């Protein structure tokens, strides 16, 4: 059994089979969720579990979730609005800062960067109370604008993108300067195109994180109509109590956009996470 040449293929097959069995543990709750969302309510807890619904109620369930008393389409639009705008602004502020901290040589740049980076260590929950008081006093409380602003200044994004900006040779920047381009021009037409893949990765991650964010909407929103998906999902669950088929239809709806973004940007997401070792 020693050495590469002698390693028989069946071993790989066996490990694959084993890991496949284990992966079922990871996928089964999702499959259960999906199947349940298609069922009529009284079949939800029938045992043994009906992995294929006996009686299909998919259309009615999803119609109720999307256009019923807690219309998901409203929350969807809220989530899309907040996530898209937050992602755009966050990418802008992070790239500008990343460029400033890596490609412009100015006095105090190092000290400022250390200060910014240090704030990353602060657990965001520790500062919720002052943020809440601040928001109440400046009129950002209970608004999408407030929610967007909270998510728009990412130290992590700055740090991640800075690594990539540092990879651009300083000669590019210098020669642009010799040609008379200002920093803004250099940033936009020379540096940004070179780091586009990194910005895309960060954008996908920021979108997913914002979409999934439960804590900030919980603290900074009050009005039902402004809820984003995770918060609406939880309120919907506590309201509709025992209607598990509907709750699961809601859960499926909440996860689907993430799945799409993840599958489309899978390479970016996995590489981005592996690269920066980043975490929401």
């Amino acid at each position: 059994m020693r050495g590469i040449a002698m390693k028989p293929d069946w071993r790989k097959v066996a490990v694959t089979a084993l890991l496949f069995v284990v992966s079922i543990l990871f996928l089964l709750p999702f499959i259960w969720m999906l199947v349940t969302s298609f069922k009529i309510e009284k079949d939800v807890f029938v045992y043994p579990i009906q992995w294929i619904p006996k009686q299909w109620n998919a259309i009615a369930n999803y119609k109720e979730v999307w256009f019923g008393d807690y219309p998901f389409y409203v929350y969807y639009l809220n989530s899309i609005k907040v996530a898209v705008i937050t992602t755009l602004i966050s990418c802008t502020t992070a790239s500008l800062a990343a460029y400033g901290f890596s490609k412009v040589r100015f006095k105090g740049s190092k000290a400022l960067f250390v200060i910014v980076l240090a704030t990353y260590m602060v657990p965001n929950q520790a500062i919720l109370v002052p943020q809440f008081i601040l928001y109440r006093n400046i009129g950002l409380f209970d608004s999408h604008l407030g929610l967007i602003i909270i998510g728009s200044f990412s130290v992590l994004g700055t740090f991640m993108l800075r690594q990539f900006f540092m990879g651009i040779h300083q000669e590019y920047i210098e020669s642009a300067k010799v040609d008379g381009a200002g920093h803004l021009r250099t940033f936009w037409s020379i540096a940004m195109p070179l780091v586009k893949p990194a910005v895309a990765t960060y954008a996908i991650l920021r979108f997913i994180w914002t979409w999934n964010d439960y804590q900030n909407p919980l603290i900074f929103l009050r009005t039902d109509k402004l809820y984003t998906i995770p918060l609406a999902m939880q309120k919907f669950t506590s309201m509709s109590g025992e209607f598990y088929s509907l709750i699961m239809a809601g859960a499926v709806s909440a996860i689907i956009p993430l799945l799409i973004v993840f599958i489309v940007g899978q390479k970016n997401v996995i590489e981005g996470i592996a690269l920066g070792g980043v975490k929401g």
Partner: protein
Amino acid sequence: MENSAVTPKTDAKPARGNWMNLKNSETLAGLLFVSPMLIGVTVLVLLPILAIFALSFADWNFVQGWDGLKWIGFDNFGKLLDDHAFIRSVRNNMIFLLAVPVYMLVSMVLAILIDRYVYWKGFFKVAYFMPYISSIVAVAIVWQVLFQPSYGPINEMLKAIGIANPPKWIADPKFALYSIMMITVWVSIGFNLIIYIAGLQSIPRDLYEAADIDGANAWVKFARITFPLLSPTSFFLLVTGIISSFKVFDIIAVMTQGGPIGSTSMMVWYLYEQAFNNLKIGYASSVSVVLFAFVMIITAGQWIAQKKWVNY
């Protein structure tokens, strides 16, 4: 773009050709580039940090307005030490830390298997990553239903294989915290796995070839090559894992609200309850300071330990 104001300033000054002005214009350009982030971080993070330290010395109920604010020195911290619910939350946080090595170990084993010994790598990465990418609220709600004590699918299955009295999971104070930890393990494996796979891929292949020539078996290769060379990755995951276990909130808020009878309350949940349910802003701020201190100590510990323990 919104920063178009930058252009005239950066362009205008170098034209004079004065070295001092050139330097100044660089400084100005730099500051303008970093200023949106700097202002955001200052207003949203730096000032609030100062505020929690100040407020932790106050007795203040939010609805009283500023007039109701009383400075009480270290009283809040004294009260915290006598507050059983708080102590219990800290203890729960400490128990929760045990989830970190568990999911790290599982992730490491899975990563090694996926990296070296399987077909369909892509499928496995996505499958194990699903819980991490999904909305934690949706995941928590699904598990809440799966764990339903009397007719939930998990207990039905346990009864079917002959366990007469399966645990009541999140409804039982003895099991609730462990149930949450299990779900956290389930959610966290995806992230840890991806980082471990990245770590594995940076280990030079020829080390394994050399070991093969020396006739090393799989265990020796793991113990002498893989494990030590993964130590920076493990260390990184340990630190981020510990820090994130101090930040656990969403899953508690959705599944148990700290209950039953405080058995799943953790520092952040306790902070939330004090601030937003009981409106005790000063007291909540003192919890914030303690949370802040814990994370700072871990971070500082990381800096020191990194130099000593990690093999490169």
